[in-house]
């Protein structure tokens, strides 16, 4: 249990997937102009990450990792080099399926998240979380917690950024620094603030 809490705190604050590992920057910069869209995309990313990370864990451990095919009679096959292409296919398929399921059974949620779902398939935070899950040797439960809390951390960062950008409209930014430049510097300052949490030990 303690282990799970520490994974949660670590992936929300200290090792925030956006501010410490720079994943999902493109949509972070493009979508953080308005508060409502930022919240919508944040929720969608959290939702997709909490599903794709455990599913990719199952795929990796029962199909791809060295010796994983022992149940099918191929104990010496190592397919782990295929993980990039399989993971991205799994993510694209899940996103597509989710879009259809939500559209059919949960129309209000579809109105809130629908526009963002197709964008998510190529968000590097999603693929990145699956690859980190392999690299850090999480077990199944840990991968569920890791996926959900990384998504939550990403959402926290994009919503904060949307808030700051709202205020930024009234600021007098130097000409060449407008938009992209100033967003990067603000993100840097946010990353510094999040690093302060690294003092927390459980």
């Amino acid at each position, binding site marked *: 249990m303690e282990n799970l809490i520490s994974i949660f705190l670590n992936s929300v604050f200290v090792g925030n997937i956006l*501010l*410490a*590992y*720079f*994943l*999902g*920057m*493109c949509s972070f*910069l*493009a979508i953080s102009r308005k508060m409502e869209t930022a919240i919508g995309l944040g929720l969608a990313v959290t939702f997709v990450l909490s599903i794709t990370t455990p599913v990719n864990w199952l795929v990796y451990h029962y199909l791809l990792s060295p010796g994983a095919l022992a149940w099918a009679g191929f104990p010496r096959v190592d397919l782990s*080099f*295929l*993980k*990039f*292409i399989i993971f*991205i*296919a799994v993510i*694209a398929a899940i996103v597509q399926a989710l879009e259809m399921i939500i559209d059919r059974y949960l129309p209000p949620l579809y109105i809130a998240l629908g526009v963002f779902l197709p964008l998510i398939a*190529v*968000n*590097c935070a*999603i*693929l*990145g979380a699956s*690859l*980190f899950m392999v*690299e850090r040797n999480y077990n199944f439960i840990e991968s569920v917690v890791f996926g959900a809390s990384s998504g939550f951390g990403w959402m926290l960062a994009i919503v904060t950024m949307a808030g700051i950008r709202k205020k930024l409209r009234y600021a007098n930014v*130097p*000409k*060449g*620094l407008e938009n*992209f*430049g*100033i*967003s*990067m*510097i603000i*993100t*840097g*300052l946010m*990353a*510094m603030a999040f*690093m302060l949490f690294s003092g927390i030990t459980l």
Partner: protein
Amino acid sequence: MKITRTKAFKIFFTPIWESNPISGQILGICSALAVTVQLKTAIVMSLALTFVLACSNLLISLMRKLIPRNIRIIVELTVIATLVIFADQVLKAFLYDVSKQLSIFVGLIITNCIILGRAETYALGNPPFHSLLDGIGNGLGYSQILITVGVLREFFGAGKLFGFQVIPDAFYAAGYEDMGFMVLAPGAFIAIGLIVWLQKTVSKE
């Protein structure tokens, strides 16, 4: 006709400076930030990306009349993923240390928006030779920023370049200290912000 006026020349050189993929088109920022702690990883990453981008542009442009419109994204992703697997295996075989340091970021070339963006906007509608040039040009534009940030961060953050100490010991003896800040994540964000500011100010004049 002078060589600088030909179309091929233009396709090759505009993305290096004017419409640079990172600072002009705001694409592919994730990896630009993550791999620039050291110059060596920045260069290896640039090479890997330029290779994947050039080949994917070429292949997709060759197949552009065969790819059905509705499933083009999947086809593009398959081509890119195959090339990335190839690049990753080559790095693992010949540069194992660097590939360990790059960790997941080689794999993330798949979702790097530069590659899909160029495939969508350029390779799908242009002949193979021009697409190849466009791919190499964009790859070099990306490398240019990556290497600049890599030099800045390694020089100020560790006083080294390529792992060799550049700042003499006498400086440290006189009280100079490395900016540990540059090695950490916030340093990367701020360094890129400042480089973009510089580039925009210079290119306007």
